[in-house]
């Protein structure tokens, strides 16, 4: 069964304290891995797509990396406005040709204290 596990469930950091969030996945035939940011009561906001091991994407203080079994979201010198829940999702082939399915992890709730 396709699975996505994110760790830690929650993380508190001081402003400027860099860290990493982990997304481990078990899926047959990964088509893509996505990172999202979700603020309370709002829909997830798309951040990155990674397709193959070794790929990296950057956006401001965030950098996402991908290996064959996991992805990391590195946060460098975070600010309070980076506080949010970060979600990881994988796209895997479905039973019939051309279709995909999307599997989400439970998210990491990140709090940055000023």
């Amino acid at each position, binding site marked *: 069964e396709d699975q996505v596990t994110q760790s830690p469930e929650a993380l508190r950091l001081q402003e400027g304290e860099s860290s990493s969030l982990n997304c481990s996945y078990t899926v047959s035939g990964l088509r*893509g891995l996505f990172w*999202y940011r979700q603020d309370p009561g*709002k*829909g*997830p906001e*798309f951040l990155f797509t990674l397709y193959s091991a070794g790929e990296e994407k950057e956006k401001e203080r965030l950098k996402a990396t991908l290996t064959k079994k996991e992805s990391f979201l590195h946060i460098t010198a975070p600010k309070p406005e980076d506080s949010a829940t970060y979600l990881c999702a994988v796209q895997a082939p*479905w039973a019939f040709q051309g279709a995909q*399915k999307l*599997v989400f992890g439970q*998210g990491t709730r990140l709090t940055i204290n000023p």
Partner: protein
Amino acid sequence: EAGVTQSPTHLIKTRGQQATLRCSPISGHTSVYWYQQALGLGLQFLLWYDEGEERNRGNFPPRFSGRQFPNYSSELNVNALELEDSALYLCASSFFAEAFFGQGTRLTVV
């Protein structure tokens, strides 16, 4: 370019009633996903539509149903509402790659 739009933003219903939630995908997107997110919890997969067909459904009772129209918009119907159906309902659309979410419909059952 317009993003995914959901309506209504908020919906208050009485237990036992029916609720209809609507989703308009990004132009060109043929897949629509529905998720339920109860307060403080993760995304629970409800339904996936692609090219007008239901491709998969999550572990929810049959009173959760929906459809996708020829223009790829979608609606989610929840019959015989229960108090525990109170949640944020999120719609996402995609075309073979990343999915983009709407802002959700907050359903409150009283």
